[in-house]
């Protein structure tokens, strides 16, 4: 029996259309996009098409889209590049309290370079406290880095309002948005979010691993992090990963087209799963109190056994989920983002993350619910 894969927030399987588009560039289409002969020109043309797709979805000009090796590199370019480019106008940086580790690590790097880094304040529900946030913005605030959809809980940040508040208080502030979990689910047009920069990862939306993108709003300057041969308008030198970029373009086009269906389908899946789990003792869902919730990510607190034990038990039954964010598991420390939203260590240890996409069926949800109930009973028996 096929496993039930409920870890799409970690990585989503390659879409067949993306796979088909990628293959020629792993075979006969091996030209370097910088070469002037037809092989090179075709590679360059393929990248240009992917760039147009992303530009169209994000409502920017194609030349404002820069391809990178993935979400982490795009985040580095956005956070470090924007802050360094605005250094003269301010040294204060605000970073979302629940950012992905790559953004937090970049903020730490900025602190070493002499920037003053503070966190975006949260309210009692673990969501952005707009009034406290507004008070924390200063005239010398150079950068706000905030994720749109949290990767561990699916909570959506009120970005457009944050951007308005920030700009009224810091004229030269740059706003960098992590849209890695948001693309294909919410509208990621930069102008609607009030973003100066926004970054994405291909493999979260059914593209191949090894491609990401940074989009900049008009007139926003960004200092490159890598130095080399001038590719990607000089912002990201190095020969382009043509195959991955082509797959990214196709996946992004489909994700954008399927956005309405995605929302309807995934809401139904979430409702069904929650309905089936009401019988679990002590179960609690970590989600937005105000309804600003991306429904495809479900953070379940199941007291009793550590989440990691549950992950292994579920895997034995063919149900694949995460204990917190998959990228966090290397660190072996508890998620600072979950701490920031007010969870104690015990709660964080027993937090499971289930994430779905359009290909997940109600039957998958049924099997997952069944497995969760069985594992809970089993762990309870073992404990007593």
């Amino acid at each position, binding site marked *: 029996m096929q496993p039930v894969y409920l870890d799409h927030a970690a990585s989503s399987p390659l879409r067949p259309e993306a796979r088909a588009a990628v293959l020629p560039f792993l075979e006969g289409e091996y030209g370097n996009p910088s070469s002037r002969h037809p092989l090179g020109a075709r590679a360059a043309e393929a990248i240009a098409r992917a760039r147009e797709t992303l530009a*169209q979805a994000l*409502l920017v000009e194609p030349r404002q889209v820069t391809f990178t090796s993935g979400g982490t590199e795009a985040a580095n370019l956005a956070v470090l590049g924007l802050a360094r480019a605005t250094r003269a106008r301010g040294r204060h940086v605000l970073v979302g309290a629940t950012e992905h580790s790559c953004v937090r690590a970049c903020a730490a790097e900025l602190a070493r370079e002499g920037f003053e880094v503070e966190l975006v304040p949260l309210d009692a529900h673990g969501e952005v406290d707009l009034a406290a946030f*507004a008070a924390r913005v200063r005239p010398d605030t150079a950068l706000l880095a905030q994720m749109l959809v949290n990767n561990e809980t699916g909570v*959506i940040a*009120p970005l*457009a*309002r944050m951007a*308005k*508040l920030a*700009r*009224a*208080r810091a004229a030269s502030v740059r706003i960098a948005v992590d849209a890695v979990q948001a693309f294909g*689910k*919410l*509208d990621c*047009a930069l*102008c*609607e979010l*009030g973003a100066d920069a926004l970054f994405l990862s291909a493999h979260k939306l059914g593209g191949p691993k090894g491609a990401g993108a940074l989009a900049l709003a008009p007139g926003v300057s960004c200092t490159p992090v890598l130095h080399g041969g001038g590719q990607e308008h000089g912002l990201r030198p190095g020969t382009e990963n043509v195959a991955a970029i082509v797959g990214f373009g196709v996946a992004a086009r489909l994700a954008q087209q399927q*956005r*309405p269906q995605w*929302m309807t389908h995934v809401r139904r899946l979430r409702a069904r799963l929650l309905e089936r789990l009401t019988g679990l003792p002590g179960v609690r869902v970590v989600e937005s109190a105000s*309804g*600003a919730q991306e429904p495809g990510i479900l953070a379940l607190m199941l007291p009793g056994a550590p989440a990691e034990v549950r992950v292994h038990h579920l895997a034995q039954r063919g149900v694949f989920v995460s204990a917190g964010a998959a990228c966090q598991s290397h660190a072996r420390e508890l998620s600072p983002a979950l701490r920031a939203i007010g969870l104690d260590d015990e709660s964080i240890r027993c937090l499971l993350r289930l994430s779905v996409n359009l290909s997940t069926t109600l039957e998958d949800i049924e099997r997952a619910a069944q497995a969760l109930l069985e594992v809970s009973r089993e762990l309870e028996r073992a404990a007593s």
Partner: protein
Amino acid sequence: MSFESVSGAPEAVLVRYGELMLKGANRLDFENTLARNVRLALEPIVPVRLQREHARLLVFPQGRMEAVLQRLQQVFGISSVSPVWGAPCESEAIVECARRVLEDALLAIAPGETRRFRVLSRRADKRFPLGSMELDRLVAARIVQASHPLRIDLDRPELVLGIEVRENRAWLYARREAGPGGLPVGTLGRALCLVSGGIDSPVAAWMAMKRGCEVVFVTFHSPPYIGENAVHKVMDLVRVLGRWQRSARLYVVPFAPVQEALCDAGAESYRTILYRRMMQRIATHIAGLERAGALVTGESLGQVASQTMENLACIEQAAGLPVLRPLICFDKQETIALASRIGTYELSSVQTPDCCSLFLPRHPVLRGSIATCEEIEARLDVDQLVRAALANTQPHNLGHTARLRKVST
């Protein structure tokens, strides 16, 4: 799906158009064209719903408010746009709605700052029981509180809360963005613009669009003397200009054979004028194919040797259609400022050679005579050169959809 719309975002964009009102019997035609242009301009962003009101257009942007506002500022014929909140035509509901509008506007005001403020209402529906000024006073009295950073100032307001009371609904706004003005593209027919990679001709094309012309483009290219990148540059310029109208069509005319023939004919000092006369002839033919009623050029009096009054007369004499020269009395700096605003300056300022820089005369004639031009041309088979150039002309559709062509024919 925008989750922020739950928190009371504006529901529509109110589009105002100015000059169309003056056009009497043609108004319906103008309004139809504007509505169609708006729909086409917004198509790549979001499929919008339009609602026609008396002298207004309402656009429902389905969550993409900022993008729609920005795009509408590139649609000629629009004088201004405002994001609007709707309320039933009833004073209590209007006050309630005004609170929401203000809440949004206040987000952009830093603590400690104040704004001079007033309410300004208009009643299109005279059945509404309160007069405009009464409504102004009522709303202002109910929403402005001591804690607000707003100070009533009727004469010099910085923040205006507008209310338009219409038949079925009142529309409220606090933000008003200027549109590009002008007339809807297409209402004044079609023109063919002779475009190079330079700064001037794209601006000239834009100005013709602004006055209601749909502009088709022609460029002259001289391979193998000039590289393909020169054509790509013109294509990029045409794409940028295409956003201001509903199409982006470019004819690329191979011009080297004409230039070689003119060089062989001698009379070096007349070369540039003669190139231009040939361009007018070829363009006139293409204009015929496109049913364009005029040619547009970026010429400006005295800017270069070929643009003296006498030389312009020599050039124009070869054209079979009226030649519109929107920049004729512009200084270079004025043109550059406009090019920056349109978005063509950055592209135009990349240096690439163009066909006019080939075989340049060392001492170009400043006061050319038509008789001399005709005398030199008599040594050539002008018609044959024109026919050959037309036979090898390549049309390109650079618009984003094939539908554009259908609409314009």
